[in-house]
C-alpha cells in the first residue's frame, strides 16, 4: 500500500537528478526515467521540479510523460505485471495465460489489485517473441508461459 499513498516527495533528490542532466541535449526522457526510479511514478510535485529545472512548461512535461507506456503519472502497485498480447504471443496461447492472470489477480487490465501489490498492464511487445507467450514483472521477463506456470510466477511476488 505504501507506494499508493500520497507521500512527501524528496524534492531535493529530484532537483539533483534534474541538475545532473540539465545541460544535456534532450534531457527530459532520462530525467523522467530516473525520477520515476526514485519516486515510483511521476507525481505532479516531481514534474513541477522537472519542468522548472529544465525550463519546460509543465503541460509539455506531462504530455511527454503520458506518451510513453513505461512512465506513470499515477501510483502503481508494488509490482507492475506487463503482459504481451501481440500476435506472436497471441498465437502461442497468450489469451489463456491472460485469462489465468486476470483470474489470479482479480483485476482487469489497467488496474491495481486492492492490496496494492500488482498493477496489471497490457503491453505491445516485450521483444522476447522467441519464448512466447511472455510477461514481464517489474524488470524480469518470463517466457514460454502456460496458465499454470504463470500462476507460479505471480506467486513468487505474493
Amino acid at each position, binding site marked *: 500500500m505504501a507506494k499508493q499513498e500520497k507521500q512527501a516527495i524528496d524534492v531535493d533528490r529530484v532537483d539533483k537528478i534534474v541538475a545532473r542532466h540539465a545541460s544535456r541535449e534532450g534531457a527530459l526522457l532520462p530525467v523522467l526515467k530516473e525520477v520515476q526510479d526514485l519516486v515510483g511514478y511521476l507525481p505532479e510535485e516531481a514534474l513541477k521540479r522537472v519542468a522548472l529545472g529544465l525550463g519546460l*512548461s509543465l503541460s509539455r512535461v506531462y*504530455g511527454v510523460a503520458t506518451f510513453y507506456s513505461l512512465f506513470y503519472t499515477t501510483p502503481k502497485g508494488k509490482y507492475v505485471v506487463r503482459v504481451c498480447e501481440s500476435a506472436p504471443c497471441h498465437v502461442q496461447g497468450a489469451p489463456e495465460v491472460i485469462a489465468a492472470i486476470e483470474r489470479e489477480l482479480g483485476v482487469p487490465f489497467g488496474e491495481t489489485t486492492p492490496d496494492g501489490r500488482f498493477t496489471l498492464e497490457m503491453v505491445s511487445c516485450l521483444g522476447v517473441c522467441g519464448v512466447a507467450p511472455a510477461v514481464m514483472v517489474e524488470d524480469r521477463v518470463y517466457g514460454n508461459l502456460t496458465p499454470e506456470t504463470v500462476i507460479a510466477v505471480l506467486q513468487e511476488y505474493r
Partner: protein
Amino acid sequence: MKLTINNLPVEVPAGTTVLAAAEKAGVRIPTLCHHPDQDVKGVCRVCVVEVEKSRTLQAACAFPVAEGMVVRTNTAAVREARRVIVELMLSRHPKDCLGCARNRRCELQALAEELGVRDVRFTHIEKKHPKDESTPSLVRDPAKCVVCRRCVYTCNEVQAVGALFPAYRGHETVVVPAYDKPLLDIACSLCGQCVHACPVGAITEHDDTDKVWAALADPKTHVVVQTAPAIRATLGEEAGLPPGTLVTGKMVAALRRLGFDRVFDTDFTADLTIMEEGSELIQRLTTGGTLPVITSCSPGWIKFIEHFYPELLPNLSTCKSPQQMFGALAKTYYAKKAGIDPASIFVVSIMPCTAKKFEAARPEMNASGYRDVDVVLTSRELGRMFRESGVDWGRLADEEFDDPLGRSTGAAAIFGATGGVMEAALRTAYELVTKKELKNLDFVAVRGMTKIKEATIDLDGTKINVAVAHGLGNAKELLERIKRGEKTYHFVEIMACPGGCIGGGGQPIKTTNAVREQRIDAIYREDKRMPLRKSHENPAITQIYAEFLGQPLGHKSHELLHTHYTAREKV
C-alpha cells in the same frame, strides 16, 4: 519552380508549399489544422493531394513544390480520403451543432459542407471528457477537440504560456493542461488566444449574457455599460461587416436599444489612466523609482507576469486597468453625481478580452465597496446579444455616448492597438514635462505588428527609452532583455495579445494577423477623427480631478485607481 496543378501551369519560388502554389493557381484546397499565422503541422491530412510519383498522398500545407511537379487536387482517391478523414472526426465529435457556441462559425461544420459529406459511416462514439468551466474567462470542452493543435501552437509558441499540450497518445490523445487540471489552478494567462486558434467549439469564452439580460430586465437595477477602445473597430464583424469597419455610433445606439440605462466609454478611463500612469512615470523618473515602468492595462499580461516573472512585479505601474478604474468610478463618482444608490448600479463592460472577466472577479477589485465591475462581456457575446435582440445594424443611426463618463480623446482610442498606450502616454508626458505643445502627435515608431518596437524620445533634453511588446511570447523576449540589462528602458508597454486589444481573445472570430492589421488601421482612423487627441485635454478629465479625485496620484486616486499584484506559482 514551375509545376502544374490540375493541369494548370503555375510558377512559384522554391520552398513554396503546394497549398500556396494552388492558391496562386486559383485552386482551393480544404484545410483544418493549417492556420495562416502558424507553423505547418500537417496533422489533420484534410489537405492531401496527389503528387505524381509519390507513393502516398501528400499534405498540401506542408509539401514543398519541386520543378516539374504534377499535382492533382481533385481525384477520386483524394476525395475519398478527405471525406473519410472528416467523417472520422465527425464520428468522435459531439452532435451538438445547434447548441454550440460556434454554430455556423465552425470550421469543421464548414469543412463538412465544403466536402459534401452526407453520411458519417462510423458509429458515433463521443470522446468522454468533462468540461472545464473553472475560470470566469474560458470554457474548455475537450470532447469537442479535434486535436488539430492550433491552440497548442498559440499557447506555447505565440504566447509562451504553455498551459496546453497534447497528452496521452493514439485515439486517447487530448489537449489538456498538465494532470488535466482546471485552468484556474494552473499558470494560464486566460488571454483567450486559444479561442481564436480553435476551429471548433472546444475552447470558448465563458458566456455571461444571461446575467446581463437579467440585469437589463430588472427595473430596480440601473445598468451602465462601458465599451473598451478596441470594440468599436471590431464589433461590426459580428454583424457581418468587413474587418476594420468602425461602428462607434451604431454600437452606442444598439446598446441603448438593448436597454442599458447609460452608455459610457472605457476610453474615458483610458484618458484617466494616462494621467495617472504618466504622472507615475514622471515621478519614478524624477524620484528614482523602479524602472522601467511597465504598463498594467492588460489583465492577461498581469496574470502572466504574476506567474512567470514575479520578480518584476515592482516594475508594473500600480494603475488599475481602465476597465477597473471605470468600475470603481461608476459606483462612486457617477453614483454620487447621478444620485443613484451604488448598490443598485450594475456595471457591464464590453471588452475585447477574456482575461478581463478574471480581472473583474479579482478580490481586490472592490474599491467602491461593491464589485466594481459586475459582468464583463466579450465582443462576441455582445454580438450574440445583438443578434438575439434583432437589432438591424444596417438601419441604425449613429448616437453619442452619455456624459460624463463617455467623453474621451483620440489618445484613449488608440489604447486598442499595440503601442497605443505608449503613444498616448508620450503625447501627454511630452507636454507635461516640456510644457510645450507637441507638434506631431503620431509616434509611428511604436505602431504596427512588429514584435518588439523600441524608440528613444527626447523630452526637451531628457531622453527616455521606450519599448512596446504585444503577444506574451514577445513580452517574454522583452522581459529577458530587461533582465539581462542590455539596455536601460524607462517605459515599457506590454499587451498580452498579438496586435494589442484589437486582437484580444474576446474578439470576433476569425481573428488572424491579416485581420488585426485591418483593425489597427481602423483604430488610427478613429484617433484621427477625434477633435481632441491628448488625454490631458479631455475636459471631463479636468472636471473629474476638480470635482472628485483631486490630483493624479492623490489620495482618492490611490484608493480607487491603483492596485497591487500577487505573485503566483510558475508551473
